[in-house]
Structure formats: C-alpha cells, structure tokens
C-alpha cells in the first residue's frame, strides 16, 4: 500500500510531469491528424501501420542525410500518401473506408518491418533539446512546458492551432459541415470531396510527423516495429476525445500519465503494472457513459461551450461516401 502511495506521489513531481509532456508529442500529432480526418468524415484506419512506415521513412531520411529536419517532411510525405489511398479508395472507387484502412494498416506494418530490418539498432541524429529562453526559468511551468525541443513545442502548437482552426475559422466550420451532413455542405457550395481529400491528407501528414516524433525524439532509434499499437491507441483517444482536439489532447496526456504510473509501480507490483496500460480503455468507456448521461446533457444544453467539449458526438456522416449526381 505504501508503495502504491509513493508511486502515486511521484506522479506529481515536476520531473514526471515534464517527462509525460515530452513523451506525448508523437501521440499528440497523430491524434490531431486523425481527429481532423474524421471530422471531415474520413476514418483513416491505417494509422497504426502508416504511422510506423512514416516513422521508418523519417528515421531513414535523417539517418542518411545526418539532418534530423529532413526526417520529418519525409515522414509526412509517407503519411499523406497512405491517407490519400484511403480517400481515393473511398471517394473514387467506392470502397469502404474501414476495409481499405485495415488492409493498408496490414500492408504498411509488414512493409516497415521488412524495409526497416537493416536499420534495427542504428542510431540517427536526434532532435536537439532547446529551452525557450526566459520562459524555461519560470518555476514549474518552465520545466514542464518550455524545457523540451522544437518538436515538443510544435506538438503543443498543433493542438492549439487544430482547435482554433476547427472552431474559430470559416474553413474549419466548412470542414465540420463536410463530416456532419455532406448534402447540406454541398447545397452551400462547399466542394465536399475536394475538402475530404485535403483534410485526410493534412491528417495523414500529422500522423506521419507523429511517427517520426517517435523514432527521432521520444525513443530515438529503430527497433522492430517501434510504434506498435500506438496507432490503435490514437484511434481510441480520438473517440475518448469526442472528436474535440482539446479533449483528445487531454486523453493523450492521461494515457501518458497512466503509462508513467505503471512504470513507477513496476518495482513494487510487477503484475499489476502490466495491466495498467490497458486502463485507458475502460476509462474511456466510462467517460462516454458519463458524458451521454441524459440529465447531464440537458443541463449542458445551457452551456454550449462546455457541452461541445464534454459531449462526444461523432461527426454524423463519418465513414460514409458522398456522391454528387
């Protein structure tokens, strides 16, 4: 019991919190990417595979050029390519999004394992640390938010920009409309399928960058399938996040915290800590149940902003096709 409390206490260390933030960048990018894609109505189910293949591409590009900043665009390109396959297959070939995404996942996973086998154990350049001057010396917030590297800062900025774009701009409103009721968007002159290509591609780029963030920053290097299962976690967190960028970001941090907690518990409770990483899943279901509780919803109707964060409605047209006749 005392071991449990110690582990819990350690969770509130500045260093632990800072490490959770530092380790979240990859999941944050990918979660924002998937959120954008699904908001526009396209489920990119290939994340677990495409993120890994992008992670490899980023690693290889950085490894051979010796320049870590070349790794990220390379990874983004792979992410975009995979996303466009999903969008094209659905829009042009009338394939089911889930089916094509799943096949793509399997393909990318196998490819990255095969193509990456020669790189296992090699070390590329890593993203250099860079403390933000002045800000990093603020007590608590300095080490937690401002003593990382550019990629970590960029992941935070991406969350804020995604939120701002979706809810505060005209284009973001159109993006939501396309995923919500495409016929209505079409009747307002919004090019539904063009936007679906665009936002699936942007989402794919972020998923790719997320992959590279793992191999070039979070856990530098290439091992056999280094991002295994993180893609599925991304898909789960998007649902947990109720398709809202801020809530999804919270989900990522919560997941990171549970992982850190599991690590802290490891010495004391070796078996229990194995179960802990799966806690985000039941926690997610519990959150969905609470958030759909009718009394709460009626009450929330009076606070639209709070409602938009707490209520988790999937975009109504998610996973469907839209065809102009």
């Amino acid at each position, binding site marked *: 019991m005392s071991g449990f409390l110690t582990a819990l206490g350690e969770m509130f260390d500045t260093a632990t919190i800072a490490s959770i933030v530092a380790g979240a960048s990859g999941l944050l990018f990918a979660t924002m990417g998937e959120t954008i894609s699904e908001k526009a109505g396209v489920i990119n189910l290939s994340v677990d595979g495409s993120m890994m293949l992008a992670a490899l591409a980023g690693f290889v590009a950085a490894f051979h050029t010796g320049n870590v900043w070349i790794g990220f665009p390379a990874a983004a390109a792979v992410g975009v390519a995979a996303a466009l396959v999903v969008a094209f297959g659905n829009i042009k070939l009338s394939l089911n999004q889930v089916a094509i995404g799943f096949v793509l996942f399997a393909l990318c996973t196998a490819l990255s394992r095969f193509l990456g086998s020669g790189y296992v154990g090699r070390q590329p350049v890593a993203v250099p640390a860079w403390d933000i001057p002045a800000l990093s010396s603020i007590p608590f917030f300095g080490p937690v938010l401002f003593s990382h590297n550019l990629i970590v800062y960029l992941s935070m900025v991406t969350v804020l920009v995604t939120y701002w774009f979706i809810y505060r701009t*005209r284009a973001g*409103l*159109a993006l939501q409309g396309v995923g*919500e*009721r495409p016929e209505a968007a*079409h*009747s*307002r002159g919004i*090019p539904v399928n063009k936007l679906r290509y665009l936002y699936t591609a942007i989402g794919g780029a972020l998923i790719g960058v997320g992959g590279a963030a793992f191999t070039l920053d979070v856990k530098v290097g290439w091992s056999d399938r280094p991002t295994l299962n993180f893609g599925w976690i991304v898909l789960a967190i998007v649902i947990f996040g109720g398709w809202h960028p801020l809530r999804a970001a919270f989900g990522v941090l919560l997941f990171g915290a549970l992982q850190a907690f599991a690590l802290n518990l490891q010495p004391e409770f070796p078996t229990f800590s194995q179960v802990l990483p799966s806690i985000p899943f039941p926690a997610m279901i519990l959150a969905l149940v609470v958030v759909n509780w009718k009394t709460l919803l009626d009450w929330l*109707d009076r606070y639209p902003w709070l409602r938009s964060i707490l209520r988790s409605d999937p975009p109504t047209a998610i996973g469907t096709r839209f065809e102009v006749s």
Partner: protein
Amino acid sequence: MSLELRDIHKHYGPVRANDGISLTVAEGTLHGLLGENGAGKSTLMKVLSGFHSADSGEVVLDGKSIKLASPDDAIAAGIGMLHQDPLVFLPFNVIDNFVLGSPGGSRLDRKKAAQEFAELCDRYGFNIDPASPARLLTVGERQQLEIVRLLWLGARVLILDEPTTGISADQRSKLFVTLKALATEGMSVIFVSHKLEEVADLCERVTVMTRGKVVGEAEMPVPPEQLVKMMFGQAVEVKDRPAVDHGAAQLKLSDIRTASGMLSEEPVSLEVRAGEVVGLAGMEGSGQDAFLRICSGMRNPRSGSVQIAGTDLTGKNYRDFLAADVKYLPAGRLEEGLIEGLTITEHFVLAGEDRGFFVDWGKAKKRAEAQVDHFTIKGTEASTAESLSGGNQQRLLLAMLPPRLNVLLMEHPTRGLDIESADWVWEQLLARREVGTSIVFASADLDELLRYSDRILVFFSGRIIGELDAKATNVDEIGLLIGGRSVDSGAA
C-alpha cells in the same frame, strides 16, 4: 430577375425524372409548381439550384445563359433553394448554420453575423434563438433560418420545395406574408406544393408537371378542379365513404399519465372501437406524439392502463403490442420507418411474417414486384428507399403494413402526398375498417381530419382540450381549440 429553363433533361438510370422541361418565371412573381408524386419537381429544382447537374438543357437568367455546375454557381447567380427537408446541420448552433458556406476570408466574425442575422429576423418577423442548436428548432424555424440565410447571401430567385409540410398554421401564414413581401421587392419565387388552396392563395402563375414533363401552364386564378384535371388528366372525386358499424373497444386507455412533459397534467381516458377512426388535432408537439407512442407501446405511461382488444398490455413493450396487432407509422419516413440503402424487396423481407433463417429471394422479389404494382409505387423492386420520391416512400410504408391489424396508429399519413395519392391512401386505410381495425391518426391538415375521422381529439400543450364529433364541427371550431381557446371564450 427573370428566369428561363430550356429543355432540361435529367435521368437517373432508366428513370426520366426530367424529360425536356421548359419553364419561364417572370421577375417579381410567385410561381407555383404542381405535379403528382414523383413528377420530377424536386429534381428540377435541384438542377436549378446546382445541387444536381442536368444531363442537358440550359438555364437563362436575365437573358444570359448561365453555367450551373455546382450550388456555388447558383448562389453566385442569386438562386437559392429551400429543400423539402431543410438542409441544416442539426448539432451546430443557429449562427454557425447561418454562416456556414458563406463567402469571405478565413476569419469568422460570429458577432457580426449574429447582428446581421438578428436584423434580418426582425425585418421578417422571425424569432429564432441564435445560440440554440438547430436540432432544437422546429421544422418551421429551420425553414426560417434557411430563408434568412439565402436572403443574406443575396438570393433573387427563391425556390421553396414543399415548404408547408410540417409547419404550423401560424408559421405558414407568416411564411406567406414574407414571400409576398419579397415578391414585391422583385424576388422571383418558385413554390412547389401539393396543396391547391395554398397555390391559389399565393401564386400568380402555375406550371403543372407530370412524369417529368410540363403538361400545362396557367395564369391564376384557376378553379382547383381544372388544376386537378391538368395534374391527373381527370377530375379526382372524393368519394363518400360508406359508414361502418363500430364494434367492441379495440383500444382502451384508462387514466393515462406520463412521468413528465406531455400528458403529465391530467389523466387521459379513451376508448376506440373496432372500425372507428379517431383524428388527433393540435400544433406539432402538443402531446399527440406522446399519446401515439403510449398507444403503440413505444413508451410506457407512469400510471393508468392500456388495453388492446380486451387484453391488458400495460407496461408491455413495443414487441408485445406488435404481437397484439398494433402498428405505428411515425412521421419521419426515412428516419424511423424506412432504412436508407435497402431496396424495396429487402424492406418487404424485413417486414414480412417469415421468420425463417434463410430468405427465399426469388419469392421475396416476386412479392415485392406484386406490391410495387398493387400500390403503384413509382420505382422497381430494386429501388432503394431513399431514391423514391416522398410520396412513393409513403406508399411503400403502407404496402408494408401487415394484412390484419387491431389498431393502426399514424402520424401525418398523407403528408407530402399529392391529392390523388392521398385519396387513394385513405381508400386503402378505410377499407381496413371492414375487418375491425381501429385507426388513430395525427394530422396538421384540418380538412383531412374532418373528412376521415369519426371523432376528433384536440391537443393543446400536453392536454386534450376538446373532443369533437367530426360531423358536427367545422374548421373554425377546431382552429380555435388548436390555438388553446375554447369556443365560447374565442367568440367573446
């Protein structure tokens, strides 16, 4: 703005929805468009608003031929359409619905939009809460939102596809006042409707379509019989229905009360006998829907009992009511009654009595073909539910009803149907009285209530405030009660 459609063709596979249509709408006129279900009215309007692109044909605006490749082109040309089912985004709030798709930079100035929205609403006497999510608006308010939006976008041709189905009488008169005001400001309005009185009241000219073709044009006023003749090629006479002896009570409600909301104040008791038809009048959401849901077992009352054909079914669920031969047809055809993506054959299989594991598709197809034929559904057994025109969706729902029923409960059984179809539907429904079916239906159409009911119950804010003998009452009396006034106080 004057508008001319020249030789518009639009085919869906083998279906010639528009088969060479030419039509002229003069500036500042209210132009009516009539035609039977499936005539191609919505299709033509969707072509005109750029929603669908025509296979061939030309649209000429103020003497200039315009390109209508997308709704964008139509909006830019000043053509705006209010769809049969208002195309709003239900989870988004009113202001977001208002600005979505409007031109402008990426900056979204909701404050300014809200201000302009409020000004327009003021001008046309609409009262819509800008912060409310669209799903909480009534159909009438969603229409008002769309109209205001289209005006804001600078529409000079306004298309309204059956705008009066699903809105209250008040909202309708407000709509008509608005449309007339707009026409005097130079707006050209195209008004699609099945209701001849409305067209007579509102329009200066009408065009009649049948099977994808224009079959007549006329300057109003024209006697309604002549319009009917143009639409159906013959006069539709409403036959006097034979009286039917009422049998034992099929549906018996005693002291029904719900836990909260509608019907919670006063207990309701009612007996409907075999072969009897009871109409439910009242503004949308005055308690008729709650009442029908209780009768159908979709909702349980807090207290009181429900008996069907002498058996107590209080507290039982919808399946038990179905087993007792009670059937409920809700108003939302595509939301609650039919399944998008499934064909007519598949619908019959799902609704059928066969509970075997395997489906005999050959037999199912034959049966579906026969029903399509018998109910004259425009489509084939392989048509999907959403590809049918509104009227034909309603026919499909009726065709799926089991042959034997004790109680048939309906919401707006003929909403959106043309006159001939509506008459035909009632003929089918009334025939069921002979085998002892009791019918309870809610309708917003007072004439329909008067013509087909034996008794009329008037609902007002969750209570039944009047029970009338259909033969001894009239439109005015029901109208007053619907507004919550009793006859004496209304006269005073």
